[in-house]
């Protein structure tokens, strides 16, 4: 067997307080594509930064990192030696393509710079020509013009391609990618992943791909390392690990990733935690008593089955999911335009269409998913539904009340009936407020003792202890913060819950828990759910009806299963086929 491209032995990384990586060892053979998967905080990015010698000053690494052709341990190598290796023998692609590029330099020059620094091209001219060549290899249209563009003039996917061109400029033996597609849209992600795979295969480079998304690894890699709390718990070929995981953590991870596999109640499998980790005990003592819902609650309605329709090109604007009788939400001809700032002094202000002529209904008790890529208008639509923004034209009726253009004082009742859960578990809670005040915020004219009692009950309903009340949001994990958000949204007993990417920022296991919680609460409180997401899998799992949004329009709407399995609109077909999936491998 030939010498491995990368040999990591007993790598330990420690902060002044605690050890973060507990001696991990692995090899990557020449040309091998290896995935490293783990939750946030598992140490997967630390692994990559230690290999690259980019650890922050406050952390110390011990062990050995050997790259073939270089006989020194990179952990002990001086900075000058590392500089020769980085970008040359091994290269890295980061998650956020905007911050990884210099905003004041043309991208062609940035690609050329890699070659002039390492003197792999004799002169500036040649380097510049080769840069254009590389930009073409990463499939950028009209590479000569792209080379002259600044990073902000490119889209996220294009910027990630530029980073790939930079990484591949000197034909590295090892390419490290840290969450390379997490910030990208689904369709773009599929293209970039294919590109990474092809580039690595063409050049015979090895790949270490770091991600939290098991489907991405299934798409690109041959072997997978599972990292859990600073230790590699499983190492094996992708097919074997996905179908027959050995370690309990891997089993749990794969079960939770599989949004199609549900139990008899339609809940995701969240297996019990393996032996609790000593440093963070998870008490399971108290099972909170659920809040009693109104005694005379209406019976659960049979789920409303939507008609499966797609956008009628050239014809009359379609009203999607039209409900006979009184719908909970009724949107007609909704448009929203924005004036874009800037433009020339004398040229007309460019107008951006956020939404165009959108019409749809949502029936009582329906779980309505809205799926689309960034910029599709799905967030604009959601803001209109919550009366956080005013439409340019069209009407929004919620619970029979027109809310578009209504004055705030007429919206009192509406505000308590429609509540929202946001994406960012950190940004959606005021860091200066205590949890009790955060959760009690939507309550109006409720005296303090009663408000506190309701907060306590609501926190129990989302699975949080009462002692959470006096804490600040930063003392909670992402999943717990999302539970607090949900408690805040439900405290007024709304009839409609609107969720904006409510689980997108969460780790797979936590995501499964929060999704199950949401499903439980929607049943328990008889909520009508509007769930906005870019993630088709999550929508399919949670919603009975889905609307696909693109370019400010709903292009297709119908029962979730029908839309996914028999898409009518070409865009839906593209979206469904681009979504990475582990189903083929797991046979689920």
């Amino acid at each position, binding site marked *: 067997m030939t010498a491995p491209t990368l040999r990591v032995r007993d790598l330990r990384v420690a902060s002044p307080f605690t050890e973060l990586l507990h001696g991990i060892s692995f090899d990557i053979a020449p040309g091998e594509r290896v995935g490293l998967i783990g939750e946030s905080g598992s140490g997967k990015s630390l692994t990559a930064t230690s290999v690259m010698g980019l650890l922050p000053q406050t952390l110390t690494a011990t062990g050995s990192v050997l790259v073939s052709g270089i006989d020194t341990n990179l952990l002990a190598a001086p900075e000058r030696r590392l500089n020769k290796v980085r970008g040359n023998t091994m290269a890295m692609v980061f998650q956020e393509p905007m911050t990884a590029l210099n905003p004041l330099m043309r991208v062609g020059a940035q690609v050329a710079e890699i070659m002039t620094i390492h003197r792999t091209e004799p002169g500036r001219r040649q380097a510049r020509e080769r840069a254009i060549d590389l930009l073409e290899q990463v499939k950028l249209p009209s590479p000569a013009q792209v080379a002259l563009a600044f990073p902000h003039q490119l889209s996220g996917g294009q910027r990630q391609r530029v980073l790939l061109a930079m990484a591949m400029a000197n034909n590295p033996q090892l390419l490290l990618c840290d969450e390379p597609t997490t910030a990208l849209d689904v369709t773009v992600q599929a293209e970039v992943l294919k590109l990474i795979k092809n580039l690595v295969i063409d050049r015979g480079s090895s790949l270490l791909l770091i991600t939290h998304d098991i489907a991405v690894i299934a798409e690109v890699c041959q072997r997978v390392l599972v990292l859990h709390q600073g230790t590699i718990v499983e190492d094996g070929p992708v097919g074997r690990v996905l179908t027959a995981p050995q370690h309990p953590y891997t089993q749990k991870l794969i079960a939770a990733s599989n949004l199609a596999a549900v139990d008899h109640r339609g809940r995701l499998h969240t297996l019990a935690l393996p032996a609790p980790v000593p440093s963070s005990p998870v008490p399971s003592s108290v099972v909170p008593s659920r809040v009693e819902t109104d005694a005379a609650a209406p019976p659960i309605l049979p789920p409303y089955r939507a008609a499966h329709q797609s956008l009628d090109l050239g014809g009359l604007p379609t009203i999607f999911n039209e409900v006979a009788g009184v719908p909970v939400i009724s949107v007609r001809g909704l448009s929203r335009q924005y004036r874009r700032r800037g433009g020339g002094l004398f040229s007309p202000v460019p107008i951006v269409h956020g939404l165009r002529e959108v019409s749809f209904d949502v029936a009582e008790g329906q779980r309505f998913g809205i799926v689309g890529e960034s910029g599709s208008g799905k967030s604009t639509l959601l803001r209109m539904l919550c009366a956080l923004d005013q439409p340019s034209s069209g009407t929004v009726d919620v619970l029979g009340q027109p809310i578009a253009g209504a004055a705030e004082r007429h919206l009192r009742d509406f505000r308590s009936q429609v509540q*929202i859960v946001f994406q960012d578990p950190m940004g959606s809670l005021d860091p200066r407020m205590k949890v009790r005040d955060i959760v009690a915020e939507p309550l109006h004219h409720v005296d303090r003792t009663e408000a506190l009692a309701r907060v306590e009950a609501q926190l129990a309903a989302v699975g949080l202890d009462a002692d959470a009340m006096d804490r600040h949001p930063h003392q909670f994990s992402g999943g717990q913060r999302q539970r607090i958000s949900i408690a805040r949204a439900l405290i007024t007993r709304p009839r409609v819950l609107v969720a904006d990417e409510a689980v997108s920022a969460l780790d797979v296991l936590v995501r499964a828990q929060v999704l199950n919680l949401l499903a439980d609460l929607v049943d328990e409180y008889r909520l009508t759910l509007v769930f906005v997401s870019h993630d088709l899998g999550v929508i399919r799992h949670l919603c009975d009806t889905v609307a696909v949004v693109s370019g400010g329009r709903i292009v297709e709407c119908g029962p979730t299963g029908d839309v996914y399995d028999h898409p009518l609109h070409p865009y839906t077909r593209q979206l469904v086929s681009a979504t990475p999936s582990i189903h083929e491998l797991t046979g689920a």
Partner: protein
Amino acid sequence: MTAIKPRPGRVVGRGGGATLWAGVVLIGLVVLAAVVSVWWTPFDPEGVFSDSILLPPGSEHLLGTDSFGRDVFSSLLRGAQISLLVGTVAVGIAAVLGVPFGIVAGMSPGRLDTFMMRSNDISLAFPALLLAIIFGAIFGAGTVTAMVALGIGTAPAFALIARSGTRQIMSREYVQAARASGKSGLFIGARHVLPNISGMLIVQASVSFGIAVLAEAALSYLGLGTPPPTPSWGRMLQDAQGYLFIEPLLIVWPGIAIASAVLGFNLLGDGLRDRLDPRMQVKR
């Protein structure tokens, strides 16, 4: 469903330790001097003593005497009163005027915001010291005039900071959530915006405090601040200037006092910002 406890994490210490304490000690000295001098100074700092002119530092006069025979140490103690008074009142006026203005501008729709901030820019372009000189000419020089003028002159800086902070906070999801639950603008401004921009306001206040102390000294030096015979650090500098080559130490003492007060407020501001932020608690 199992109940989940908040993430365990022992609070090891709070942010801003050493900086905060250095600031507290320096400001403490100034406050101590001001308080003590209300009841006691070694000598009368306001008279004229022809028998003890320009004495060097010694056992009787700890820091020597000035050209009127006054004890420098006593003048420094009494002068701390004026500096603290001017700093507190000027910063108070500036914050009371500037912060609500900035928050209202930051929460207002585009055009009103633009109008308010352009007017603010115009006032910002007008130096506080020049305003104080004009006020002195109109209303007569004095401590009150100086304080009010410095307060008004510093307010636009507060408005600018408050407005930019407000814009940031207004885009946060928790403000969206508050709006979605029907909270009024007043509530959002008071409960969400103000607490979250308080960190930068405290820093601005402490820096302005230092600047006000400095400006008062400058005004007194120009003869537009505190009138004689009340001692002020600025006028001590002015008096000492004439004897720069005879008794250079005279200029050093008020200089040290001013410098340590300004430094103290800056350190205090930095330290407070870290300490008051619940996120800055050092955890392990």
